[in-house]
């Protein structure tokens, strides 16, 4: 078994390879990303009493996302004058790799997980922290005014939500006493879902992760009605696909993380297999985040910074205090 050919053969035929390439891995990420673009357009259309995409298949235009991918993929690659070519192309590509890396950490069902890392939760949050830096780099490299403003907004916005995001996840770590995502799910198997003791933390987590995903109440870096899609303004067709892809992959990854942390992940009555439970919870969160987009107006940057550093930070400290008393117990008076 020592020669490289048989080693590679062993790797390719293993379930591990299948996981990387097909299910939690790359192919399923691409298909679900395309599916969620269609789903969001259809849902937003329903909220606004429109029909939404309906031509690209017999069933409600469900192939629209794939049609868009094919269209964008074969467009010309136009790079604006004076742009820094390397960073201009590198940042969306890196963002896509980051999105895929996030989903490698999520336990989809018992044993269905690409990497069961001991520090899964901080690893997830640390990897996702890179994305505003890439947005800034993309905005700066385009040598254009709207992208530059969008990139700077991403930088400032990060300072507002990053600390409340980590502190709201801290409550889960305090109660479960582990950073391993599978460990967190197993804790919930014995002690009930964390949405009840950590209700405040869950609300904070979903608000701050919406800001992290740059979705609508907090989509300042790409505000299409103010700064023309912000940092994405100069991206031509194929690269625009690489820019839009990570947005939906991050939505999927954050919804998966939310259901892992607060809704018990793959746990549920044994009538339905665990993987279906997991996707049911994830899709509920995705629908909720998509409805935010149809419901709330965009906040201003100074409002977001002020509220992030005062209200969100205070509430996340209150959440830590709640978690502390759940673990240690109320003092006897």
């Amino acid at each position, binding site marked *: 078994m020592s020669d490289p050919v048989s080693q590679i053969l062993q*790797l390719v035929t*293993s379930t*591990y390879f299948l996981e990387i*390439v097909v299910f939690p*891995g*790359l192919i399923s990420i691409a298909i679900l990303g395309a599916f969620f673009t269609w789903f969001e357009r259809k849902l937003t259309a329903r909220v606004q009493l429109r029909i939404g995409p309906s031509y690209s298949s017999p069933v409600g235009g469900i192939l629209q996302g794939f049609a868009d991918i094919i269209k964008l*993929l*074969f467009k*010309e*690659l*136009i790079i*604006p*004058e*004076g742009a820094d070519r390397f960073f201009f*192309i590198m940042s969306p*590509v890196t963002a*896509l*790799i980051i999105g*895929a*890396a996030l989903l*490698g950490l999520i336990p989809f069902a018992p044993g*269905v*997980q690409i*990497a069961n890392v001991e520090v899964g939760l901080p690893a997830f949050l640390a990897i996702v922290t890179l994305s505003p830096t890439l947005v800034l780099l993309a905005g*700066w490299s385009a*040598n*254009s*005014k*709207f*992208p*530059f*403003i969008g990139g*700077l907004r991403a*930088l*400032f916005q*990060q*300072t507002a939500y*990053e*600390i409340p995001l*980590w*502190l709201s996840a*801290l409550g889960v*770590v*305090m109660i479960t*006493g582990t*950073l391993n995502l599978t460990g967190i799910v197993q804790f919930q198997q014995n002690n009930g879902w964390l949405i009840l003791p950590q209700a405040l933390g869950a609300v904070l987590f979903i608000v701050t992760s919406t800001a992290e995903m740059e979705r609508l109440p907090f989509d300042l870096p790409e505000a299409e009605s103010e700064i*023309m899609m912000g940092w994405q*303004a*100069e991206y031509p067709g*194929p*690269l625009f696909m690489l820019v839009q892809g990570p947005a939906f992959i991050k939505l999927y990854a954050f919804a998966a993380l939310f259901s892992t942390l607060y809704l018990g992940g793959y746990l549920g009555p044994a009538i339905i297999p665990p993987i279906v439970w997991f996707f049911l919870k994830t899709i509920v969160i995705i629908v909720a985040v998509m409805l935010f987009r149809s419901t709330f107006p965009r906040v201003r*940057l*100074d409002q977001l*910074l*002020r509220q992030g*550093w005062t209200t969100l930070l205070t509430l996340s*400290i209150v959440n830590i205090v709640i978690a*502390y008393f759940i*673990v*240690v117990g109320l003092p006897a008076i």
Partner: protein
Amino acid sequence: MVSQGIPEETGYIIFLFAATLALVITLRLVISPRDPRPTPGKKAPFESGQIATGPGRTRFIIQYYPYILMFVVYDVIAMFLFAWALDLRALGAAGTVPILTFMVVALVPLAYALHLAGQRENW
């Protein structure tokens, strides 16, 4: 689920490598269509249909700079709390006084910094 003999971390690196490879193939497909004679307007930066003027990388917004300074300090401080949170069950109430001291020492300057950041005329 890991097959025999492959450590988890190596597998994760293989996963990232495969993601990169898929992207490179995609990009190779993408770079094919080309325009032999592009017009000057085609490559100009977008400025709402006007002819672009001035440098693309303009001045920074400086009014939110204090928040960045605060972020540089307090993002690291928030990380320290994870070490305490992980051991909270073992520490119990014994870790309360040190962490409370730590939080007070951290948060009182934060309140003052927020007060200063709210005063625009300082910047």
